[in-house]
């Protein structure tokens, strides 16, 4: 068994990180690293693509792999270019909920529709944390944030359900409380030949916890109490939403190249 210190040495750079005390960002980094360690994938073959926001800083500059830190919302199309250009690379996208489902929402839909072989980790803290805690597409109706001081007049959407409906092969939801399951799910995502999407509910003690009188540990406990692996439960479902085989974009492109005699 590899120790925590060895994981850190092998996969993490630029620490201490700028993440706030109690932030879930480091936990996601840990889960990604351990998943790669358990998998057959070589670290040199991984490209981690991120956009803008706190979650984008999880891989860049902290993950010790090739990283591409891009513009706000566009991580998925940048990652698509990498994967289509070189299918031997294992391409990970780490994106916040605002980055992924807000400004980048259309790219998320089309990534899922194309079922392109990317592994997308949407780190969902329910608001725009880096810029001060503004309302996001994932913020609950009625919730108070920096820009919904009177309660959120809009509604949130179930991003994982949307991605599933859009055509992704593999969709799951976990929280930072469920570390073991999360590691296994990331590993599963890398094995999947298609679009893999994992929504990771992640605590933001600074922008969200403070407003609700909770610290990071309280928020993890909240995830424990308020989630269920039972789809029939009233609590938030955690687990695999779908895992199906479907035509995948990059393989289809390369098959056409082969058929047309391209080298």
């Amino acid at each position: 068994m590899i120790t925590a210190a060895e994981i850190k040495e092998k996969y993490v750079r630029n620490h201490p990180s700028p993440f706030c005390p109690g932030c879930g960002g480091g936990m996601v980094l840990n889960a990604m690293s351990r998943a790669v360690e358990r998998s057959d994938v070589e670290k040199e073959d991984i490209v981690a693509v991120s956009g803008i926001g706190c979650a984008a800083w999880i891989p860049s500059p902290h993950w010790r792999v090739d990283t591409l830190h891009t513009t706000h919302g566009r991580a998925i199309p940048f990652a698509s270019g990498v994967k289509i250009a070189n299918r031997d690379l294992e391409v990970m996208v780490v994106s916040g909920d605002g980055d992924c489902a807000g400004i980048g929402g259309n790219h998320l839909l089309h990534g899922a529709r194309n079922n392109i072989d990317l592994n997308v980790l949407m780190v969902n803290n329910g608001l725009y944390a880096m810029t001060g805690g503004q309302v996001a597409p994932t913020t609950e109706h009625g919730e108070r944030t920096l820009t919904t001081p009177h309660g959120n007049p809009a509604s949130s959407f179930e991003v994982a359900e949307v991605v599933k409906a859009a055509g992704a092969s593999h969709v799951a939801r976990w929280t930072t409380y469920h570390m073991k399951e999360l590691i296994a799910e990331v590993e599963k995502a890398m094995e999947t030949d298609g679009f893999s999407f994992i929504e990771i509910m992640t605590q933001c003690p600074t922008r969200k916890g403070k407003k609700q009188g909770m610290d990071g540990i309280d928020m993890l406990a909240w995830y424990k109490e308020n989630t269920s692996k039972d789809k029939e439960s009233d609590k938030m479902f955690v687990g695999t939403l779908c895992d199906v085989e479907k035509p995948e974009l990059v393989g289809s492109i390369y098959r056409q190249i082969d058929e047309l005699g391209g080298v």
Partner: protein
Amino acid sequence: MMDAGEYFLEGNIACAEAAMKAGCLFYAGYPITPASEVMNHLSKELPKVGGRFVQMEDEIASIASVIGSSWTGLKSMTATSGPGFSLMQENLGYAVMTETPCVVVNVQRAGPSTGQATKPGTGDVMQARFGSQGDYEIIALSPNSVQEMFDLTVRSFALSERYRVPVILLADAGVGHMRERVKIPEEVEIVDRKKPSSGEKEFFDTSEEDHVPPMPNFGEGHELLVTGSTHLGDGSRDTASFSAQDRLVRRLVAKIEDNKRDIEDWEERDADAELVVVSYGSMSRPARGAVKKAREKGHDVGFFRPKTMWPSPEERLKEIGEGSKVLLAELSLRGYRMEVERCVDDLYVYDRLNSLPTVDEVYEKILEVLR
């Protein structure tokens, strides 16, 4: 891909063929008039030479995937027109900041906004130079014939690889949709980006005279840090210090500025004449014809056509402006005008919208200025 030989091609097709000839192996795009023919043609032909073609959900995604592809080592391209070019601006700046070679073709149409999709215009000249936020320099080339749609596409790839910079082929619907005889040569000049030697770790700074650092690919074990944030030579982010911002941005600008002699290119005839007509793109054809006619009629008129719009041939323009009157002929009201205005004292303008003039129409304007 077409064999070497003579063809009668549309400008956009010549551009697509040139891309393949130059070694382009990745194209991502989104349909838009009057640029779609580039994409239509490559969707059919690029896979046959082993290239990857993908139609993306919009122009933002198109240029994003082009940049992603370039970091795997492939020569990569997209083509669009005004509305799509506007959407690409943020990621164009990202390509400048991350020093990612790529080619962006803008077959300009009449704007602003949706304007007239099938009609030529050159109103994006300033946007090509200044469209993305922050300080930067960029390369933009202007073809005026189908042959140049071919030749300057090849050169766009060469310059982008040489200087690790996005290069804009600033065409217009006039040349994009024009058909002419074009000669496809056996070989074209292919330039490949500078690769790092083993052990090298600085991919975003250099003390070399050309200011161009070497560029590795993803998957080579460099644990690369590629970011649009201000960064140090090893790619690590520095979001606050004076020295990082100052050193990086000054080098990005110097990379173009100090290599200007190698980049700039123009056509000129009798540029010491009493009046010099300055024109570019499809408009430069009737403008050149009018100059020829004026000379045949005994008038002292010359011709100057920048093929490199950016960096602009400002020194040559200033020399011309010192001794001659200048008539700028362009297919827009504000296209290149501010740039020429700042170089030339005695400036006259023939601006035109929607369609090209006849040779005689420009000739009449020349006579008017001479009078």
